[in-house]
């Protein structure tokens, strides 16, 4: 089976006032259809920048120097902004670390979900409303109507993240990119969100690129794992295999720390 997404030799630089920092330096990655791939690494290893590069939603001072990002046969880096905005939110969707700050504080949850449905599916207000309520129920928000009318700051972190997932899945994306979606949540909520994501993935058949620093999560959900270190992918392995025999010294270091304190 072919790859849904393939990244090769990606290099991303940040242009600061006086210097240039290379955040990603020759990273590669591939994801098959309906697969869960975990991109793991410590802070500053370039995971998030790699993920944001896929849809070119990088910070202003970040520049993709070179690389290939291929989504189902389309060369993403050759597309212009008008072509890209048709892919963002429709074929590829994102969820992020702190749902409260990644949701716009001045719009209700409902308004933010309806916005993406109207944008990509051209539905009218009533249809979009009904679909939004459906979506919220799909992510197991029972009080869908109340959440619909709520602003992000009025909801808990867990509830916000569920709503965010609903928003991301509104247009049935082929690829969901989840950037540390549970890091800001308590462990008990974390488990609920992970279970929900895996369940939805099996039901809706999308590929999941999951970014985390938490090897315990990686072990639980991944089909394959890529380890990033200083802007490079230093190891790629099947989930089972990685925890048995890591090759790169950084992976070994990570695993030894993980063995001691990362799990119970």
């Amino acid at each position: 089976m072919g790859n849904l997404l393939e990244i090769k030799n990606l290099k991303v630089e940040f242009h600061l006032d006086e210097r240039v920092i290379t955040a990603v330096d020759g990273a590669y990655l591939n994801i098959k259809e309906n697969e869960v791939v975990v991109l793991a690494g410590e802070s500053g290893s370039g995971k998030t920048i790699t993920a944001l590069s896929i849809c070119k939603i990088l910070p202003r001072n970040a520049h993709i120097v070179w690389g290939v990002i291929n989504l189902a046969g389309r060369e993403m880096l050759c597309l212009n902004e008008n072509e890209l905005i048709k892919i963002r939110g429709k074929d590829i969707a994102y969820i992020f670390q702190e749902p409260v700050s990644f949701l716009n504080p001045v719009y209700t949850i409902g308004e933010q979900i309806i916005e993406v449905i109207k944008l990509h599916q051209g539905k009218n207000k009533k249809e979009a409303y009904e679909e939004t309520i459906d979506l919220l129920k799909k992510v197991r928000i029972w009080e869908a109507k109340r959440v619909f009318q709520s602003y992000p700051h009025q909801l808990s972190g867990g509830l916000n993240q569920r709503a965010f997932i609903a928003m991301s899945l509104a247009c049935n994306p082929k690829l969901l990119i989840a950037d540390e979606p549970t890091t800001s949540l308590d462990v008990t909520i974390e488990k609920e969100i992970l279970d929900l994501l895996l369940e939805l993935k099996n039901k809706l058949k999308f590929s999941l690129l999951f970014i985390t620093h938490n090897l315990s999560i990686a072990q639980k959900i991944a089909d394959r794992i890529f380890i990033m270190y200083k802007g490079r992918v230093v190891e790629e392995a099947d989930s089972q295999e990685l925890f048995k025999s890591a090759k790169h010294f950084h992976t070994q270091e990570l695993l030894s720390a993980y063995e001691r304190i990362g799990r119970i």
Partner: protein
Amino acid sequence: MLSYLIRRLLGIIPLLLGITIISFAIIHLAPGKPTQIEQAFNPKVSQEVRLRLEKLYGLDKPLHIQYINWLVKLGKFDFGRSFIDERPVAEKILERIPITLTINIFSLILVLLIAIPLGVKTAVKAGSAFDHALTILVFLLFAAPTFWLALLLMQLLSIQLGWLPISGLKSLDFEYFSFGKKILDLAHHLFLPILVSTLGGFAGLTRYIRSNMIDALKQPYIYTARAKGLSQEKVIYKHALRNAILPVVTIIGLSIPGLLGGSVIFESIFAIPGIGRLFYEAVMSRDYPLIMAEVVLGGVLTMLGNLIADIAYGYVDPRIKYKR
């Protein structure tokens, strides 16, 4: 919401009292009695008048009694009578308010119309030549005293080019104009004051909106908006601008004291009969009831402005809760 409003309204009572106490204190604790000064500067006031005035204003009584008497009168909107022409102070102030209000409202609208797009544009193009040029302009406008700008523009537009009248509100033969011509004449006279007032105001607001907008564009929810597939325009004007612009509501409230204070110089230069000029005249002629009344009025207006701005901000920004 209702209980919040009631609590806020109750909260202004101590402020109101404070405003009256300070206004009272300034005038009564300053060296020299108002009536003495009145006499010294205005020889027309005879000894007899002075005594009559002292009695009229209860200046022979202890301070706290004077204060309470004054407060009771204030409560009935009785500000006393002017020393100069014996007319009720309230009447004198009321007839001056419309013109000051007109100028400030027009210039506020202009300021918003100019500052918001410029602020957004400079934020989106931060670091560009356009941004730098505007930054320099903003610094210059910030540093230039308004009355100097007024003098320069008068020199240029009124005297050298002769396009505009130098000062005043109406032409000499105003009374004989048709209605339409009256409006045109007023507009002709108000153009320069409104222009100067706008120049003085838009620099700060442009800078403020620029920095708010730059801040908003860095927020995480902007990544979300882009990840959704929204166009650049929608990301900027729907998601960032709304967040950047909400606090402007409070800025408008906070700008009231500056506008009132500024109107003193402003209206004196252009010879506009507004409350600023009235205050200036009152100060020059030591018209003590009028000074007191205007100081209290200034305080109360500012306080109300802040209150309304606060409530309005709570209304437009969902993050502000009507609690605490």
